[in-house]
């Protein structure tokens, strides 16, 4: 038996909707099988994975907190990936944004002013953008591959943060433990509603997604991104510059990653510490593709991925599933979503040995 794909004449509207549901169904079925093999009640397990985190208000807030940086970063990355710029160093830009945005509250801990927060956010965006500018510069100037440079810069940014928080920026009253002084109240990103911890980062994420969606859909710049991404030559004929696009997409995604970084530090953590991200910059790459590089899809994808993290914890606590199983389950979900998306663009045919067409493929 063989599997053959046949390109659909146009994108299937039906399967755009059905494919995620099919993926979910497959994940549920597989997950149920896996949990029962491990001797857990599959119903309980799936319930705590997908339903429990959605039942309480505080937990919905937590979902927004977890999803916000993923969405913010992924929206920026979608522009990069669509224009064929492979920025996989968002984690570093996130870190540098957090550092740059923290300069004010760390260096002037006594500065109480309503101005401080907007300045921090802007500096965070600049920090992230400048750091993404390094691979952009190297790519445009020396033709250096951005996958590698942006990835290497992640490690350097993390070590720089490590040095800052253990060295010059360490809180002198903190028993030498590696973290800065807590930010003053004015420097903390406020919560959206009184009912939970979710803060403005989620609003930023939604706004950014809508803005980028608008740009891609209705503005010339969006068209430029798509054309250059499909073919640099075609782009040149249309009068677009691939070089300028490198700068545009890298700076944009860097700025959004930087904004995510400073928002996370200011809103969720409240000070700077050696480790501020459980790999948001890398997870966001998956989010970007799960959302099919469409900013609105990315909002949904970010929320779903955040749900699997929360669900993993709920399942650990309520029925004692280990975090490794939770991660395997997360991996399964990703695989099913990615493979079911094939149905949107292709028809799948199973060819049995007898009915072999002309042997070419």
């Amino acid at each position, binding site marked *: 038996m063989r599997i053959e794909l046949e390109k659909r004449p146009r994108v299937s509207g039906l399967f755009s909707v059905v494919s995620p549901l099919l993926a979910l169904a497959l994940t549920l079925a597989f997950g149920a099988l896996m949990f029962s093999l491990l001797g857990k009640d599959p119903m309980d397990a799936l319930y705590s994975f997908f339903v429990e985190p959605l039942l309480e208000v505080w937990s919905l807030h937590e979902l927004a907190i977890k999803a916000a940086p993923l969405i913010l970063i992924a929206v920026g990355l979608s522009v990069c990936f669509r224009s064929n710029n492979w920025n996989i160093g968002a984690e570093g830009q996130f870190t540098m944004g957090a550092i740059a945005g923290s300069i004010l509250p760390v260096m002037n801990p006594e500065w109480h002013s309503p101005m401080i927060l907007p300045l921090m956010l802007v500096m965070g965006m600049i920090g992230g953008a400048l750091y993404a500018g390094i691979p952009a510069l190297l790519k445009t100037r020396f033709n250096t591959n951005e996958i590698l440079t942006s990835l290497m810069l992640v490690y350097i940014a993390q*070590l720089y943060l*490590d040095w800052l928080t253990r060295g010059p920026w360490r809180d002198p009253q903190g028993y030498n433990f590696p973290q800065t002084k807590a930010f003053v109240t004015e420097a903390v990103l406020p919560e959206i509603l009184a009912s939970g911890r979710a803060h403005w980062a989620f609003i930023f994420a939604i706004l950014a997604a809508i803005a980028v969606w608008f740009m891609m859909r209705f503005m010339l710049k969006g068209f430029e991104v798509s054309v250059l991404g499909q073919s640099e030559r075609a782009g040149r004929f249309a009068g677009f510059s691939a070089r300028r696009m490198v700068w545009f997409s890298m700076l944009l995604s860097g700025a959004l990653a930087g904004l995510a970084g400073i928002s996370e530090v200011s809103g969720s953590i409240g000070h700077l510490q050696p480790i501020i991200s459980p790999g948001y910059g890398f997870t966001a790459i998956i989010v970007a593709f799960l959302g099919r590089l469409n900013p609105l899809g990315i909002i949904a994808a970010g929320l779903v991925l955040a749900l699997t993290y929360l669900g993993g914890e709920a399942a650990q606590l309520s029925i004692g599933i280990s975090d490794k*199983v939770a991660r395997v389950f997360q*991996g399964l979900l990703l695989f099913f979503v*990615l493979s079911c998306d094939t149905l949107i663009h*292709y028809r799948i045919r199973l060819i049995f040995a007898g009915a072999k067409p002309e042997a070419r493929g």
Partner: protein
Amino acid sequence: MFEAILLTVITASTPLVVAALGELVAERSGVLNLGVEGMMIMGAVFAFAATRYTGSPYIGILAGIAGGALFSLLFGFLTLTLVANQVATGLALTILGLGLSGQIGESFVGQPGIKLQPISIPLLSEIPFFGKVLFNQDLIFYLSVALIVGIHWFLFRSRTGLKLRAIGDNHGSAHALGIHVVRMRYLAVMFGGACAGLAGAQLSLVYTPQWVENMSAGRGWIALALVVFASWRPRRVLAGGYLFGAVTIGQLHAQAFGIGVPTQLLSALPYAATIVVLIIISHNRRTTLINTPASLGKPFVPDR
């Protein structure tokens, strides 16, 4: 002392070189598999498990290779048969690999491992200095050298290698010429998985003969970086891998020697060095373009 340092560098560099070589072949065929870390850790746990049950690290090596190759099939099925996005699938493969290996290896934590013993090559191993460093090594080191020679020959001297590169450069024309694009890519991906699995086996049998979760600790990512660093040339993988290993070990020695530089700065050196060397190499636009597989990461569906 220099000899001992060199031996340490070789042990630290071998897994990077081996995994990078496998990925290089996959990428030459036009497939970008970012799941090296996941395949490597699967290789490590398979190798450790098989060695524990059979008592033979050689069976462990085979199991590591098989584990990596099988795991890569999952990636192959998604990206080649179902043409899912390669970047996302690779990352998902890493998540799955880290979780699955942790689950498989849960009972092995704290169990003493069996170390793969060096094989000294008669006569050659008696050469002063070089003999001990190069000819008194374990099988995986010898394999890594053989892989470099073999892959170089395969890619640039053999007909099949030429086909593989043709697919990587332009899968459309390669298909038109009657080359089985998908079949070749499956083989290349599995070769990449096998090499990552072998690298994982080196971790759990040679480097640190034990099993702990996440023991690959980011080495799969460095291997990925090495491929690009080497601009897809096997011999440069060797140079890059050893440069990286040398800087890593060198900074530890600098510390033990009492050179008072911030440790973070020293730890950042290998990454910075990679960027600098990369700039120097890629400055020459022509050579980079010649070596870069043009179809890298692009999906291929044969039209009928």
